[in-house]
């Protein structure tokens, strides 16, 4: 009968069969810099669009976001091609069309594939836009066309969560709250899946949007600091029309 020792030995033999992988640090560096540059360029385009919209009087697109450090927000400071060096960054999702204003020091990553509307992708999934801050928490987002109402979409989100994470999450969220996402009705679902998971969903113009906050440092369904951060991010959302 196979035991843990056999398994351990097999894994090491298979891994060692690879030999010493040749690593090309320059290639990895180029790829990493390219990723940052792409995200930075998208941020700059978003700023340009927002500035043009403001000049044209299309609407009040600037959010009321105030950075966590209390400094005065200034759109003109967002000029660096490296998002995480900018005091404020407005991120425009290439895949899903919404925009969100991120606080100082946050870094954003564009999704590299489109969500098919199934399951509940995690924060580092290729279909998720990902936002990384300065604390343990990170935020992710994705969207897909839907014919569901907000209530139905919320229930579908719970079902998808249980399908993908049923082993870790309880049978239902600890709490559900009506909230506003970018000035539109939304729903907040609070889970304790061994770590804090907060999900915010909205349906706008036939598109269902998902925003998630994950905090592995909190073993509860809610946390005042995380909730405040999440609600402020959600308040800055601008949906695609």
């Amino acid at each position: 009968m196979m035991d843990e020792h056999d398994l351990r030995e097999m894994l090491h033999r298979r891994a060692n069969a690879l030999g010493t992988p040749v690593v090309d640090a320059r290639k990895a560096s180029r790829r990493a810099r390219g990723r940052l540059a792409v995200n930075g360029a998208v941020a700059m385009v978003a700023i340009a669009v927002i500035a043009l919209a403001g000049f044209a009087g299309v609407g009040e697109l600037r959010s009321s976001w105030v950075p966590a450090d209390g400094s005065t927000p200034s759109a003109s400071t967002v000029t660096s091609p490296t998002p995480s060096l900018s005091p404020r960054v407005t991120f425009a999702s290439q895949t899903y069309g919404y925009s969100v204003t991120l606080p100082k020091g946050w870094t954003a990553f564009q999704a590299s594939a489109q969500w098919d509307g199934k399951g509940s992708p995690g924060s580092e999934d290729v279909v998720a836009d990902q936002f990384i801050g300065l604390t343990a928490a990170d935020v992710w987002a994705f969207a897909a066309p839907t014919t569901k109402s907000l209530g139905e979409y919320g229930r579908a989100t719970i079902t998808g969560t249980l399908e993908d994470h049923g082993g870790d999450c309880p049978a239902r969220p600890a709490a559900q709250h009506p909230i506003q996402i970018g000035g539109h009705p939304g729903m907040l679902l609070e889970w304790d899946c061994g770590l804090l998971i907060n999900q915010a969903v909205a349906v706008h113009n036939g598109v269902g949007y998902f925003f998630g906050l994950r905090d592995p440092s909190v073993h509860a369904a809610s946390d005042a600091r995380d909730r405040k951060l999440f609600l402020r991010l959600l308040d800055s959302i601008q949906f695609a029309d």
Partner: protein
Amino acid sequence: MSGSTGQQAGFDRDKLADLYVAHAPEAVRLAFLLTGDAGLAEDLVQDAFARLVGRLRHLRDPAAFGAYLRRTIVNLATSHFRHRRVERTYLEREARLPQQLGNANEALDEAMQAILLRLPQRQRAAIVLRFYEDLSDVQTAEILQCSAGTVRSLVSRAMKTLREQLEGMPR
């Protein structure tokens, strides 16, 4: 401002290159055990580094880089298979037992890896992290973002499957 930014960027590039050289070989092996494909493994590792580079300056504990890297690789491997919809086809191909077997040990290794690659992704990740990376239940749980109890359950289910499917194989 721009000067310090440039210095910071240069520092990060150097730091990234150093970290890549230090961590990439072992990271590729981990990704290989999770995917069964050396080329894909290297690709996932490079993607993981690209994702982590934005975090370098925020990393409070540089010694934690390896843990961040492992977590990212596990998540990327999961994501790759789930969303490219190639897992079933790919794993079925990989899972075919070799037509011409070498020695018995090699055949057993290949059979074990084939079964490993057919396991649900989280069970496979739990097995590789526990028995290849030699992480504890708690460390594995941190990477898989679940409880230590869930890790024990994942490992137990995976071991049961491995034993059942290896039954009858020549030893």
